[in-house]
Each structure stands twice: as structure tokens, then as C-alpha cells.
């Protein structure tokens, strides 16, 4: 008879094998619960944090809109770059071959 078999028989004689088995079931259930919690809550949060690190920061408007006027909306979903505090266009101007409908000049 091996050493482990003798120990199992002693535990069975004292009725402890059921406790041990129950404990193992409880432990297994606990691990599953923790896993489920992680999947439901912790993991998405971690993923969200990881995503936030890769996304470019959104710009915060420097000015506040008056209460009785609609808030300005973004002119274009493509972000413009900002160097030295002034924003560059997201796309530079190109030579136009179309009929102009507006004139820029000093006033």
C-alpha cells in the first residue's frame, strides 16, 4: 500500500475526505467566480485603460460657450495638428480648378 493510499484511508475513517473534497469544490467555485468577475468587470477596465494609452488625447476647448448660443461643433472629424499653440489645418490648401465662390483678402 502506498503512503498516499494509507493517508486517504485515515482521512476517510475520520470523515475528513468529504470536507477536503468540499473544500476543493469551494476553491474551484471561488476560482471560477473570480474569473467570471474579472471577465465581467476587471478585464474590460484594464482593456479600457490600455486603449486610453494608445488613443490620442482629445483637445479641450480653451473657451466656454455662452449659455444662449449653440456650442461650436467640430469642423471636421480629422484632427488638426497644433504646433506652438496654433492649429494647422488637417489638410493643407490645394490649388483650385473650380469656380471660386468666396474671396479672402484684407478688410
Amino acid at each position: 500500500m502506498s503512503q498516499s493510499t494509507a493517508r486517504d484511508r485515515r482521512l476517510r475513517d475520520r470523515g475528513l475526505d468529504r470536507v477536503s473534497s468540499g473544500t476543493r469544490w469551494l476553491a474551484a467555485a471561488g476560482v471560477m467566480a473570480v474569473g467570471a468577475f474579472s471577465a465581467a468587470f476587471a478585464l474590460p477596465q484594464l482593456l479600457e485603460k490600455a486603449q486610453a494609452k494608445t488613443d490620442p488625447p482629445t483637445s479641450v476647448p480653451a473657451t466656454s460657450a455662452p449659455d444662449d448660443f449653440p456650442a461650436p461643433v467640430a469642423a471636421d472629424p480629422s484632427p488638426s495638428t497644433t504646433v506652438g499653440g496654433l492649429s494647422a489645418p488637417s489638410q493643407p490648401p490645394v490649388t483650385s480648378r473650380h469656380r471660386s465662390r468666396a474671396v479672402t483678402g484684407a478688410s
Partner: protein
Amino acid sequence: VTAPGGEARFVALGTNIVVIVAEDAPHGLLAVARSTVERETAAFDAACSRFRDDSELMGLRHAAGRPTVVSDLLFEALEVALRAAALTDGRVDPTIGGPLAALGYDRDFTFVPTREAGRSAPVTVTPAPGWEHVRLDATDRTVTVPPGVQLDLGATAKARCADRAASAAHLATDQGVLVNMGGDIAVCGPPPPGGWSVQLSDDHAADVHGDAPSVAIRDGGLATSGTSVRRWARRDEPLHHLIDPTTGAPAAEVWRTATVAAGSCVDANIASTAAIILGAAAPGWLGDRDLPARLVRPDGSILTIGSWPEDAGLRAAGVEH
């Protein structure tokens, strides 16, 4: 009944306003866009005008240096003006109201005396007091202007108004909109195929014609500053409205016209105004900020900066020389 698409024109903020919506926009939306823009210009005029005794800005003169609660709109305009000053190291300074008035530009330009009427008045040059002396407190929305300091928001308020008006008109119509306020151009929403085509000129009131150089933009803004308009003379000394705050005198005419494209109309106008005042340093300053620009010298020759299209400059040279 308004025809589909098209454009609306009116006068406000002392200049010509043009509102353009996409040519295939449904009936009635141009009228909606126009009324939206009119509302914005009326609000800015009441808040920021230097030429209306009843404007909120002029009311600050009576505050005698005490903190004054102002409207959200004036507070915003002052924030934009001080931001412009900070970003240009004071070259675009809102405290030039006094120096401008001392040179004779103390009323709507339509009524500023030109050469003959102003002959007897002496030319007085005084440096701007400095934008650092103007205090804003966002917690209670107050502004403190030292006694004797006169603010002029001309370099930023109109362009900021164009940005807000274009956004508001786009929001109201769900159409692509271009708003042109005396050459300060803001666009918002989907552009037409090929972008918004804009003719380049020294004067925003120039006629549109096929041979003139034009560029297309798809977002943000385009602005032009120049010394060839709003000129007058005192004692035979020619003057223009772009003042160097450090001297209080009109900026040296290294560039006749500066046009800049930026992520917003107000940023474009800050940069174009700064370029005129910076003079010979303007190309490097604009290049450091990745701002596409077109500078025209007094002789008509052209220098393009950054990603500004070179061929537009060449075409302009052919027209202007």
C-alpha cells in the same frame, strides 16, 4: 423662398458677410444658415464693438480698473484675444485700442478722415500698454482693465465670430457651410467636391474672376491680413491699421498681404496678423508652426510657406505683376 444652395450677403461688424451652403442643399436651408449667422454677428457686435458706445466692451471704460462681470460671449472673446497675445509674444495685442485711436482710427473706418480732413491733426504714437495688464477671472467671469487702457478685439473677434457662425449654421442646417467675414473664412461640415474654392486677393471686396489665383480648403479657416486696405494719412504721413504694439506705429510694410490656412479661422487670422507685424521674421515663424501661408511683398512678388501650393503662387505672380 430661397433657391437651393447659393449664397447670402449682408453687412455686419463693419464689413461684408457672405454665407454659402452646398449647391445641392434643400430649399430654405440658406435662409436658416443666414439667420443663424446674423444672430452670431449681432451678438458679437453688441459685445465686442469698439465703435458702439452701447457695446459691452466700451462699457469697460467706465469700470475705472475695477473687476467687472461680463457676458459669456465677451469673456470668451477676451480669452481668445489674450490667447492670441500669448501665442504671438504680444505681437497681436488687444490693448492697441489707445494707439489706434491716437493715430486717428477712433471710429468706424467709413468715418475716419482720410488725407485732407486729417491734415491738421498731429500724429501721436504711443506703445500699447500690454496685454499682461488685462486680468480675467473665470470663476466669477470678471475682467479687470487698468484705467486708460482701451481694448481693440479687431484681430480676433471677427474671426472667432466666423468660426462660431459656421459651426452654428452647420448645426442648424446639417449642411456644409462657408462663412466669409471680410476675408476671414471659416468652413464647417462636409465640403463640396474638390473643397471650398477661395480666390486670393489683396482686398476681400475684389470681384471673383476666373484668372485670379484660388485655393481649395476642406476644413478649418483661411484669413488674410494686409496693409493695402484701411489706410489713411495724417500730415501727409501714410498710415494703416496693423499696429506694432511695441511702438504704437503702423507695422513696417515688408509684406503687403499675408494669407494663412489654419485649423480655425481665428488661428489663421492670429497668424496672418502676426506675419504682417513680424515682417522679415514671418516666414520662419510660420514655418516653425507648420502653417501653410502665402506672403505677398509690396512689389507683388510672392513667397509661399510650408505646404501652401506653389503653383497657386506662380499663377498669382502672373496676375499681379
